[in-house]
Every structure is written in C-alpha cells, then in structure tokens.
C-alpha cells in the first residue's frame, strides 16, 4: 500500500464520519472570524436558536473595514467614517459578546489581519484543521495545518456543529528545488508557480509545497506561499512542520506550554508526507530559474519576470487566452511589448495578509533606507499586518526609515488590498502592490494593480517605475 501524503494524514485524523455518497464530516479545530463574512452566520444561529458548538474554538478580529490612519483609529469605532463599515464592525463586537467568542477588537493591540493574527497568537498550530470565511485562510497551511476558506453558510455550519461537510480533494506536490538567488523572495516563487500552473491549475487539489527552496524559507515566507495557493485555484496549501515551525510557535499565547509543548512538537514533526506517498500531480521548479516577478494583467497568472515584456495577444495561439489578454491590456492601459521596467507607477501599497509581516517590512525598509520616494509617486502606504507587527517594526526603527523615505506608516488592517475601507486606488492609477489579487477594481474602481514582492514594491517606490530589485541590492552592497 502506498504511503500517505500530509493532506491524507490531516484528513484521516479529522474524519468524524464518512458518508456513503462520498462526502464526509470533518472536525474543525479552529475557526477565525472577521466582520465581513460573519454577520449573516451569527444571524442564522440566532434565528434558529442555535449556540456555538465550542465557542473557544473561535477567534475573531475585525480587519477588512477598519481605517488605517492614526487619527481615525484613535477614536475607536466612532473613528470609522463610513457608517455602513462602522455598523459591520460593531455587529462583530456585539455578536462575539453575545455568543461568548473571544474577539481582539479594533482597540486591542493584538488586532490585525486575521491571517496574520492567527499564527502570531499561536492560534494556528500544526496538525489542526482551520477555517475562516475568507479565501486566504490557505495561509495557515504554512504551519502544517489543513486550512481553507469557506462561505458564510459554512461559517454558520462550523459554528453550530464544529464540523464541515467536505469531499476529499486530490493531492498535488509543488517542489521548488535548489536555492533562491539574492533579491528573490517567497512572493516571486508563488507568482512564478501561478504563472506556471495557472489560476485554475490547483482547482480540486490541496497543494503541498516542498523542496529545498521552500524548506529554507522563514515562517513569514512560507505563509506568503500558502496564502496564494488559492490564487492557483487550491483551497488549501500545505508546508509540513519542521524545526523552523516549532521554534516559531514556542511561547505564543495560544500555544501549549512546558511539557505539553514538547509532546505536541514531537507529534507535529511526525506530520509529513511519507516517502512513498502518491500525489495526483507533481510540479517541479528550479529556484535558480526564478527572478523577481511582476503581474501585468488582471489575473495573478498574468505575470512576467521583471526583465520581461507585456505579451502580445496576437502572438497567442489560443483564441480564448488571446481575448483574455486583450481585455486585460485594455483595462490596464498597457501596450503589447512594453518592457515591465517601463511601467510607470502612481501608488505603492506594502501590506495585506500576503506580505505585511515583520520580515516583509524589513525587506522593504532595507530597500528604501536612506533613499527618497520618487516625486511622481502620489501615495505610498505601509500597512503592518497586526498591532504586534507594528510594535515590533517600531521597536526596530522601521517606521522611521519608511517615513524619512516618504512612505506613510499606517495602522493595521486589510487596507488597499481590497479597499473596503478608505484606502482606495483611484481609477486609472498604477499600483505596485504586495497584495494577492490584481482583479479589475480589486484595489479600487478602475485601479490598476501590479503584484510584486515587498522589496520590489519598495524599489518601485524609489524609482517611480519597476526596477529589478537585484540591481538595487547590488548597488547597496557596493556602497557599504
């Protein structure tokens, strides 16, 4: 009998009941909750007279709607200028109070983007099943947990039953062999993967990421990779826990302590795919081939290396794909053959559940340190992923580096990644963004998004157009 994959093991260990029709009841260890996809679920509980099955399995924090300027945030709920956003955040507070769910509310220093907060608090642990009404829940797979996004009906289902009705997905392994070149980051790896397999390439699969380049990544880098598994179509991404994971978790508030931690860590380190595990699909990339990536279109698969050019739809053999390229270029206001480095930018956004952790901010700060944002850049935002990330960055003096360079240092939240708050990309403007989606209108009505790594976004802020961050890093090396 063939061995099991990590996904097989996580599935088997959480199987409550296999039904005859192929669906299964899967036990959920943790549900993360935010203000946008939960009100209708709580309402459902109320109207059916149901209670949460296990209130302490849930952890809530508002992130999508909340403002990121200091003046607004200092006024708490009343500082949310948009009344509809305010009611949604207040509804989360009220619901959590009513149902006995722990919420890190907007005034709590631990508040932040739900996918930054979970791992940071130790609420995300290897071997868990985790859900959240947000597709980027795949992030938590970076710790060896089976984590995926669900809809609001399922949020209600998990609240009421601690289970999810699931059908087992297929197994995919994406192996990134070798070592990354300097200046190339986790974001570039995952964009290169999506460019390779496409945004539907992972549909129906759980993707396990492995190989030397993945194993060499920090936890922050691993979270960036798994975060964007959904952009490759996969609801869940996974990276097996190792010593890096165990070291990251030790001492976090929700993590087990003392002897129990040691026992847990021992169990977590066993949670890997067997050597003879069978994957339905295997994709292999060589890390050395990956260079900094920039998206030019309106889907994350529309990506090119920074040294490349915007494609020509007339050169595309597949007529459907040619049409998609045409639609994207029209929206983006780009001409075929334009060098990526010649794309001029108006706005820079460094933040989101993909890239707002301390390592991301350090990478961006290292690039802008002692430099100034180009005069043509109208707005450059740095939005830390949580209050604790912000605190850490300030302790390291990163906030000063950003402000001296001409970037704005904001309060934690989802911000311009999806622009539900006031941080919106104006129509027609090009934004170098460390977020995860470049869909039409995603960052603001008519806004034009280019997805990049934090270092690439920082370099673009300095130059006003895309540059190869590897050149800047070389320049910095020479200067020192």
């Amino acid at each position, binding site marked *: 009998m063939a061995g099991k994959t990590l996904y097989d093991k996580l599935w088997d260990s959480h199987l409550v009941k296999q039904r005859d029709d192929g669906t299964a009841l899967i036990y959920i260890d943790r549900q993360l909750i935010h203000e946008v996809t939960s009100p209708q679920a709580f309402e459902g509980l109320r109207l059916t007279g149901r209670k949460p099955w296990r209130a302490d399995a849930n952890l809530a924090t508002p992130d999508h709607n909340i403002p990121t300027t200091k003046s607004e945030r200092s006024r708490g709920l009343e500082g949310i200028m948009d009344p509809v956003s305010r009611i949604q955040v207040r509804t989360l507070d009220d619901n959590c109070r009513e149902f006995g769910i722990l919420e890190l509310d907007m005034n709590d220093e631990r508040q932040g983007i739900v996918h930054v907060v979970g791992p940071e608090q130790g609420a995300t642990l290897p071997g868990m099943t985790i859900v959240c009404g947000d597709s980027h829940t795949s992030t938590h797979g970076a710790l060896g947990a089976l984590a995926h996004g669900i809809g609001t009906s399922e949020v209600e289902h998990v609240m009421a039953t601690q289970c999810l009705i699931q059908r087992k997905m297929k197994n995919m392994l994406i192996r990134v062999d070798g070592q990354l070149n300097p200046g190339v980051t986790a974001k570039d790896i995952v964009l290169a993967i999506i460019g390779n397999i496409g945004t539907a390439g992972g549909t129906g699969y759980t993707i396990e990421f492995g190989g030397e380049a993945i194993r060499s990544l920090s936890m922050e880098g691993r979270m960036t990779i798994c975060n964007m598994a959904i952009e490759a179509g996969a609801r869940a991404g996974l990276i097996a826990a190792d010593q890096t994971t165990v070291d990251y978790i030790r001492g976090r508030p929700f993590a087990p302590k003392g002897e129990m931690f040691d026992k847990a860590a021992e169990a977590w380190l066993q949670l890997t795919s067997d050597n003879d595990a069978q994957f339905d699909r295997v994709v292999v990339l060589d890390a050395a081939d990956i260079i900094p990536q920039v998206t030019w279109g309106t*889907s994350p698969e529309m990506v090119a290396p920074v040294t490349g050019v915007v494609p020509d739809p007339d050169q595309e053999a597949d007529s459907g794909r040619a049409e998609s390229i045409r639609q994207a270029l029209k929206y983006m206001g780009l001409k075929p053959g334009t060098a990526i480095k010649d794309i001029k930018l108006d706005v820079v956004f460094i933040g989101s559940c993909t890239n707002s952790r301390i390592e991301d901010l350090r990478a961006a700060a290292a690039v802008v340190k002692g430099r100034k944002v180009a005069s043509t850049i109208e707005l450059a935002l740095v939005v830390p992923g949580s209050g604790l990330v912000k605190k850490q960055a300030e302790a390291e003096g990163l906030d000063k580096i950003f402000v001296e360079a001409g970037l704005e240092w904001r309060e934690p939240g989802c911000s311009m990644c999806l622009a539900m708050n006031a941080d919106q990309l104006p129509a027609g403007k090009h934004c170098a963004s460390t977020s995860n989606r470049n869909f039409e209108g995603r960052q603001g009505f008519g806004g034009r998004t280019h997805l990049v790594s934090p270092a690439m976004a920082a370099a673009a802020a300095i130059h006003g157009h895309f540059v190869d961050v590897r050149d800047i890093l070389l320049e910095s090396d020479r200067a020192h």
Partner: protein
Amino acid sequence: MATLLMCAISCWNPIALTERPGLRQQLRQDQEIASEFELQNFETKTMKKFDVQTGVVLPLDRANVDTDFIIPKQFLKSIKRSGFGVNLFDEHRYLDKGEPDADNSKRPLNLDFVLNQPRYKGANVLLARENFGCGSSREHAPWALDDYGFRVLIAPSFADIFFNNCFKNGILPIVLDKKIVDELFTEVTAAEGYTLTVDLPAQTITRPDGSTISFEVDAFRKHCLLNGLDDIGLTLEDADAINGFESRWREKSPWYFNPPA
C-alpha cells in the same frame, strides 16, 4: 431516509422562531441597529427548492470571472443576505462607481454589457467560461446571482469555494465539456429568446430543439437542492458522532483545546 425526513421537518420556520422567548427582543435590537441605515427586515436563509427550471440564457463570454467582478467589495458591508441583485456585476453593468446607498435606477447603464441587453431580460440561466467564481470566498457572490434571479450556472469549470457556496443557496452550478459550452454560446448568441430547461431530478438540460445534454451532480447536494434542506440540521443528527470524535481527539491532542494564556 428517516433521517432525511426528520431534517426536512426540522428546517427553519420563521413563524415558530419568532415565538421563541428572548429571540424577539434580540431581533428588535438588531432591527434597531439596522434601521440606522434603513436595512429593515432581517432575514436568514430559506433555501429554495430546486426542481425543473426553464429560462432565458444569458451568455457571459469571459474566462476567470472573479467574485469581485460578480459583486464588488463595497457591497460586502451589508449585514444582510439579500438585496445584492441590483449590484450584480456592478462595475460592468453601470458606467459609474456603485455605492451601497445609491439609487441604482438613476445610474448610467453600460449598454454594451450583456446583462443590459433587452433580449436577455429575465434570464435565469447564466452561461459562463472557465474558472467562473474564482477569487474571494464571499458568499455575497451567489447571493447576488440568486437575488438577480439566476438559478442555474453553466460553465466548463468553477472555482471550488464558489461552487460550494452555490449549492448552499439553491443555485445549481453545472459543469459541461468546453466543447458543449462553446456550442451553447454559439446557439444563444444566434437565437434571440434562447431558453434551456434544466431538470435536476433527471440531470438533463433540454435545448430548444428538444435534444438533451446530461450532467453530473453530487448525490448529497442534489438531494439537498431538491428538498431545500438546511444541512446544519442534517449534520446535527450526527451530534453523537461529533461528540465521540471530539472526546477522543481531546484525549489524543489536548494542545488543540488549550485556552489562551
């Protein structure tokens, strides 16, 4: 079968529930909050039963239609499940930027957009391309499609989370071969008033010429759709199994049940 029957009986009944003590007061509080923005009449889901649907087909000829395309983020601020239909495909349907409190009847329409073409008025079958519903997990996407009146979606492929969300809202997403979808696109655009009849019990789609296309659907989902079942009720029938699992799991992995420090 007895289990399923019990569940059907235990499905949500709005009248009985408002009679429950305490609930009425809660509803009142919520309505007070909501009335601040004239969001009256809180609702919960009532899954529509699905049987046979005949309707005009609207062709949306575009791959990778994401959930931001289906319903832009500014409409996700609502704490309700309904009223999203007027903002379905908002950024393509109107020429200006939509806002949650706008009077949509006064907004300039994008007459080039397929939804605004008179021949597709009242469509309840949406014909789409690859990877429909990719992106965010927002259930507001199926809520908007449902609220507009779509009951059936046909595409060569759907994104996983969206696909799942459809079934929870009485919408039937059907995956057909790309070749057949191509044919349907050609037929729909050629013939004004083109309709399809979708028969869920028989798992067939009937074209205007009487020819049929069969489709696959998960047995459990089909059953839930046909009966308008609330799957929470169904799962709770397995409460003993869940409790049993939970105590074994707690024993084996107590660290997942640790309260925060």
